[in-house]
């Protein structure tokens, strides 16, 4: 038998929801800019778990969710590269990674 009969779909959704909420909390509360990027990666992974679970349970023949997950992984890799480049450039100019001091655009 496959995984569909032994583990309910809701279990995967619960894990993904926990991961997503942890990522949101970390995104809001992190002072370190690198940790903010890590939180974004956590949220993207949560979305990917959802996509894979739906693809396996509800769309077993045409696994379109897996194709979407591959695209999400691609975009996440590009996002990480550009985000860390921006972070390095920001660090070079401001000499800090504290999110509270990146307030140039704050009114």
């Amino acid at each position, binding site marked *: 038998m496959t995984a569909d009969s032994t583990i309910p779909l809701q279990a995967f959704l619960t894990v993904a929801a926990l991961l997503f909420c*942890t990522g949101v*909390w970390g995104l809001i509360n992190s002072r370190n800019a*690198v940790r903010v*990027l*890590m939180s974004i990666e956590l949220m993207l992974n949560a979305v990917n778990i959802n996509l894979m679970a739906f693809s*396996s349970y509800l769309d077993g023949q*045409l696994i379109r969710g897996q194709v979407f997950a591959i695209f999400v992984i*691609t975009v996440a890799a590009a996002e990480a590269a550009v985000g860390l480049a921006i972070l390095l450039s920001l660090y070079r100019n401001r*000499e800090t990674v504290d999110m509270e001091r990146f307030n140039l655009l704050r009114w």
Partner: protein
Amino acid sequence: MTIASTTQQICFLVLAATTVLGALGVVLLPNIVYSAFLLGGVFLSVAGLYLLLNASFVAAAQVLVYVGAVNVLILFAIMLVNKREDLSAIPGLLLRRVLSGTVCAGLFALLLRVAFTTRWALPGPLPVGEDATIRIGEHLFSDYLLPFELASVLLLMAMIGAIVLARRDVFASDVITGEPVDQGLIEKARSPMLLERGDTSPNPSSPLVETSR
């Protein structure tokens, strides 16, 4: 993939526990290097969850891209910006944490309610199992061909953009004329954009003065 159901459940429980605890560690641990390594653990356990869902190709891609590339990139970024700085206290930090925690708990409750009250169309069609990789290849070269090509363009743009953004504009000599370049001019031309007034000291290693807000 055929494993006994009890084994599958144990695997799922272990992977889910490591995923969630690792994510909490990523967010909560004070040392960011530990967070980065725990993030690698989270990525690996998510790849294990993908294996439980009959998706071996995406699990391999997850290990290669996330653990192999993104996590290493994050570790390099941590090394490059490695400076011990004691963060100044902000008023209302605890209130902010509690408030955002409440909001996140509410979001979690909402997601759980959606997950458990929606009547999913279960059982769906039989999973393809081992043929998933072949099916993904067919998708990528037939009906998802345009997004596939766009993804390659996106990766190229991200690569060039990352190089341009992270590059240090300091050359030992001018590329065209071959004359030595005044380093101070380049630094001065770059710095006033982001530095605040009074901070444009010629010594770049001097700590920035926190202006009173």
